[in-house]
């Protein structure tokens, strides 16, 4: 094709530029296909959005259905573990009544609340103290200590549990299977999770410290008056994570409380786990669902409310390389 063109066209006889033709061509090139393209793209975008919307709707339904199932099962009147239908045949509030007046659940709830508040206070204080020290203070053992703590964190936390159990037995000979033991277990090792809060303190400008020190404040005042008020996001994150931990923990509480004669000492997770054991489930399944709703509602609300800080904490910790 190109060779043929070369042969037939005579450069000298043809006009140098055929502006009209070029304009026409240009118009064809720029307008026509473009209009077509935008039309196609719009169609594709609409199609893509519809597909995306549908996929999201289906996925979110799948994600929410088990929780919804839990909620409606707590209102089921028929006893037993399984029901052949998704929706209960008869609705009732009896499960909640039974939960609060016939079981030990209120005591478990109180226990867990107490343990979580105390251990959260200790954990938060410890984490903030350690991470501030590592972020701002200069001392000889700083680097080795941080490395050792990093290594300690790599051992599975449960591994040392039997030794902790023995230690508690020695330290609290009369009531080693107590809430005090659980508080100790949940909060004594808090220093190990200094990492995220330290990352946060590192981003607070050092100029603030310097300014305070020039004004005559000592380290303690700087920490207390300047840094802490600026650290609201990380304080909330630490509180959120540590207050939820005792509600979700099964492994430690089941070990500490194994073989306790008074089941009223349990926390909610242990007590509710026992309800699903083979001998209990027929009788207690719907009660379990009601209890789950009662436990999950405040935590979910708390989480939703403070979600922003949670994400900040998690991504802040993850982004640090």
């Amino acid at each position: 094709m190109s060779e043929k063109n070369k042969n037939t066209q005579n450069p000298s006889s043809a006009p140098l530029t055929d502006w009209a033709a070029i304009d026409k061509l240009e118009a064809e090139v720029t307008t026509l296909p473009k209009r077509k393209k935008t039309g196609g793209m719009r169609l594709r975008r609409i199609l893509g959005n519809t597909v995306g919307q549908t996929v999201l709707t289906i996925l979110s339904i799948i994600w929410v259905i088990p929780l919804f199932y839990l909620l409606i099962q707590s209102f089921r009147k028929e006893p037993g573990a399984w029901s052949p239908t998704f929706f209960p045949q008869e609705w009732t509030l009896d499960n909640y009544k039974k939960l609060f007046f016939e079981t030990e659940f209120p005591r478990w709830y109180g226990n867990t609340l107490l343990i979580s508040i105390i251990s959260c206070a200790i954990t938060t204080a410890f984490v903030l103290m350690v991470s501030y020290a590592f972020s701002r203070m200069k001392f000889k053992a700083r680097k080795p200590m941080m490395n050792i703590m990093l290594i300690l964190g790599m051992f599975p936390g449960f591994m040392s549990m039997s030794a902790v159990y023995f230690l508690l037995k020695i330290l609290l000979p009369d009531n080693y299977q107590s809430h005090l033991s659980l508080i100790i277990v949940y909060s004594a090792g808090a220093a190990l999770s200094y990492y995220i809060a330290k990352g946060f303190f590192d981003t607070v400008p050092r100029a603030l410290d310097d300014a305070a020190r020039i004004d005559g404040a000592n380290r303690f005042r700087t920490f207390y008056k300047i840094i802490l008020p600026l650290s609201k996001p990380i304080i909330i994150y630490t509180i959120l994570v540590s207050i939820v931990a005792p509600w979700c923990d099964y492994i430690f509480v089941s070990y500490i409380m194994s073989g306790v004669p008074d089941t009223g000492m349990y926390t909610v997770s242990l007590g509710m786990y026992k309800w699903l054991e083979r001998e209990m489930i027929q009788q207690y399944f719907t009660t379990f669902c009601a209890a789950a709703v009662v436990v999950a509602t405040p935590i979910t609300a708390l989480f939703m409310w403070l979600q922003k800080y949670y994400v900040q904490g998690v991504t802040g910790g993850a982004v640090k390389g």
Partner: protein
Amino acid sequence: MDLNYYRLTPWGKLLYKLKKLFGGIGRGFVGFWVRLGKAIAAFFTGIVKGIGDFFGGFASGSALTKTSYLIMGSSHVFRGQIVKGIIYFALEVLFVLYMLFFGGKYLAMFFENFFGGGNVGRVETHVSDVWNDELGEYVKVAGDNSFHIILYGILSLFVIIFFFMCYLSSVKESRLLEEICIIGRKPEGIKGDVKRLADKNFHLPLLSLPMVGLFMFTVIPLVTMILIAFTNYDANHEVPEHLFQWVGFKNFGELLDTSSSLGMTFWRVFGWTIIWAVCATFSNYFLGMALAILINKKGIRLKKLYRTLFVATIAVPQFVSLLIMSKMLDTGGGGLGSGGGIITQLIENIFGYHLQFGLDITTTRICIILVNMWIGVPYSMLMCSGILMNIPDDLYESARIDGARPFRQFRKITLPYMLFVTGPYLITQFIGNINNFNVIYLLSGGGPGDLMKYTDGAKGTDLLITWLYKLSLGIDRNYKLASVIGILVFVISAVFSLVIYNKSSAVKGEDNFQ
């Protein structure tokens, strides 16, 4: 990365990257040992210097300084720092009393057979030949408690180290005091020290309490349990009735031995742990990312509602959502038509297939990974969407102008950016999944078992961590194996962290992100 890289074929590129990764591991290991060696060398030169200073100070010091080498705080008291001197003296007295009446005995028994092997402790609980009329039996004599010997031995070792550090600082201070007195100045009182605690030495009050907690309830128990791995402490050597013995590396050999049934069990559990960790981490990560991209896409409506719905699943405590899931998947005990959980029934009604959750190992494993997605995808979605919003829009803009299709944009912009930023998150997730007790234990309890393939309490979907749990409690109590498994989990976590750490620090040098 050199330019020749771009000439390679895709396979060549892969090979190049793999080579680089493993080279990185090699370099990482070498670097680690070099650093360790340097640290050890620095440590020993420090010690040698310290010993020199110590004896040099003794030789050149005055009589008062010399007494303070023996009686801590004496030089402080007579040179004007009375409170400090008394504290030092009290510390010494307490230490001596502790060692005399408590620590020394345990420390001696701890080290007695430590190297040669043999009993931990001297006397086993036994029946004496004294008759007790009231009980109608011979009097039982309580023997030594091997576990307490190890625990207190470790405690005493740490006490000695702590005391030694205090001793050194007291000696150093008394030499300084001597110099101050020679110049003719008055030594500073306790007030100055207290003032410094709120300022220059503020780390001491900040760290002391958390560190005491850490030492008492993490370090000492952990070291004790590590040592238990070198004993034969199990249900047959239960304290306080029996003594147990030091056995060296025997437990490690038995567990790793592929010819025994225990060894095979270990390797099976180990294999599943790794498969699980890989599947769980990557499925959650990529699906979470996909979901985040989908929700963040322009033109999608109700973004906030979707996000809230997904986040609801992470806000609900895991033990609730996992337990309800396990009951929804329950088989009801038998085959087709035996009812069971709502999902099992649903599948049965639609496909005529009875889900073998908790009955068949492979089915259970697949179900666990799927349920874990339900639990974990929103979590990584939440994280990814935060980071996605940080990717500069002009990157996409210029890619679009250059004619890159969405998939190409994803592969060339989104994915590298995400991997770069979330690299450390991936390691923590991976290690978290190796130790993911809740998902396995609350969903399947580790079951179903298979007696032909699994022994010592392990079952088909057990991870190392749930096996550890079962071994330290219940009928299969086998503390020594639990400790060995704990150590191996640590080794796995440490190796993976080291690899990824090297990898991500290598990435940092190469790319322009940041």
